[in-house]
């Protein structure tokens, strides 16, 4: 686990590019530690965020680190609420607060076993940095609501796409593609990130075929470093896991099921 510098850091936006229905936010962070794939950061715009006349957003928002390249960190954004909207408005030269890298990331597949990366919607982000560091080629399966969102698949190489409305790729769920993939390659290791429904589908399929799976979870969190105890998910056998410090990447075997309501404040 890469440790974070103590305290949030004021960094500069170097770019904001459209990627279909999403935005890719690029932030200059030449001195920041190299994150592990699956780690995340808490982001808040330096202006217009929890101060002055602004009532919301107040708390920073958690985003997977989608890529590290040339001293920049990349984040995948979708405008779904006051926090993500404010972040989507950022332009090159503006500044934002960054706390991270945080959390436990993915760990590498055992030697000789093929990785299947499966993502849904904005949750494809940590799979991009994972693909960047994996030594061997991986199968990439990505699901989206529609064609505009499916353009996000360009973040990864060689992705097979599924859309809910059939406007791009396979008409149906990305977990359909996973089911076929697991039949072809029963020795695979699965890495997944996406909405709770998709993750639960992945968990159930992998449990049925005895396939190891690492799930990058999302949950509403106030702090990102274990302080608020707000981001919990039930652990198999009782009790809770904190997504921020016990995850966000959690072994599927540690979960009874992926709960639907673990959504984040947007």
């Amino acid at each position: 686990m890469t440790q974070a510098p103590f305290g949030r850091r004021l960094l500069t936006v170097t770019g904001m590019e459209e990627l279909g229905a999403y935005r890719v936010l690029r932030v200059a962070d030449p001195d920041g530690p190299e994150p592990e794939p699956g780690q995340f950061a808490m982001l808040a715009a330096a202006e217009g965020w929890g101060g002055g006349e602004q009532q919301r957003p107040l708390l920073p928002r958690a985003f997977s680190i989608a890529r590290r390249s040339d001293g920049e960190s990349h984040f995948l954004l979708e405008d779904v609420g006051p926090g993500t909207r404010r972040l989507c408005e950022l332009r090159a030269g503006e500044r934002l607060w960054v706390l991270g890298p945080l959390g436990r990331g993915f760990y590498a597949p055992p030697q000789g076993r093929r990785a299947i990366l499966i993502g849904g919607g904005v949750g494809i982000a940590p799979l991009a940095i994972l693909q960047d560091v994996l030594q061997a080629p991986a199968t990439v399966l990505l699901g989206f609501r529609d064609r505009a969102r499916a353009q996000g698949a360009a973040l990864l190489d060689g992705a097979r796409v599924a859309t809910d409305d059939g406007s791009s790729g396979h008409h149906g769920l990305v977990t359909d593609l996973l089911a076929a993939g697991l039949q072809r390659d029963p020795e695979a290791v699965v890495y997944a990130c996406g909405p709770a429904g998709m993750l639960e589908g992945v968990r159930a399929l992998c449990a049925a075929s005895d396939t190891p799976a690492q799930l990058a979870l999302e949950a509403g969190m106030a702090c990102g470093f274990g302080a608020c105890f707000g981001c919990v998910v039930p652990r198999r056998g009782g009790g809770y896991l904190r997504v921020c410090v016990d995850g966000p990447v959690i072994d599927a075997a540690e979960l009874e099921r992926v709960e639907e309501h673990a959504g984040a404040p947007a």
Partner: protein
Amino acid sequence: MSVDFCGLELAHPVINGSGTFDAIAARTVFGDALLSDFPFAAYVSKTITLEPRQGNPPPRLWEASAGLINSIGLPNKGLEGYLREDLPQLVEIAAGAGEHGQPVPLITNVMGSSAEELSQLVEACEQHGEIAAIELNVSCPNVKTGLDIGADPRQLEAVVRAVRDRTRKPLIVKLTPNTADVALCAQAAQEGGADAVSLINTLRATALAPRGPSAPRGPSAPHGASARRPPWLGGGTGGLSGPAVRVVALAQVAAVAARVRIPVVGMGGVRSACDARELLDVGATLVAVGTESFRDPAAGARIASGLQAAAGA
């Protein structure tokens, strides 16, 4: 600007609110940088209960206007687990974070549903020299047991009196804001033998589940017309913190400080040295930071150095 607080010498007047900073988790996330820049002059543990608690089912958070509603439910390992697993780690952190060979004082926050339970907790803390002071949680609005004791001055005085003799350590009573007269409660705590009071805890609040196609969980209305909308939080209700509560806290801290002779720890929505200064100016001896640490784990250090800069100017 070192401060004397119930005989403890603190490097500055900024500490954390109980349950808003998990120093053990933060040590894992930030490493030794946490120690060299430790944000608090004393460290208050999260609330410890006799038996382990898992906490409330999620969702546990809601971002409100200029605030945060939480319904965490006091998850903790229980007294035995805390003393065996957490306290040794906190002692190591406090030693590493201290200056001039003086560890950061550790304050243990405890909650019980009766005077007997609280007495057991306080007696156990008394046995541990590493614990510098004890804070009684009689106010957490998330848990039914904590609410009544702190909201009723007579009960509060009786409970504080019952546990007072069990320890020689400073005893801080954390007051609930969800009561008719917080100053009267503070006075009752003082009469019971408290060495200090701290306030405010969170204000009871709730948030509703977003309107959606899914069937509400609540009971149906008599004629099946409109069902009650269920709460968003797994615990039903929660407590409001953050900038939204700051002026309420300021009024309550001022009222309490005017009423009691013992020191007051003021907290509620503090984001800056200016906010902290206002609490000190109405009579608080220490200021605690909570929700702002969620926005920036180093907030306490920033606020403390801001106070120091202003004092030196």
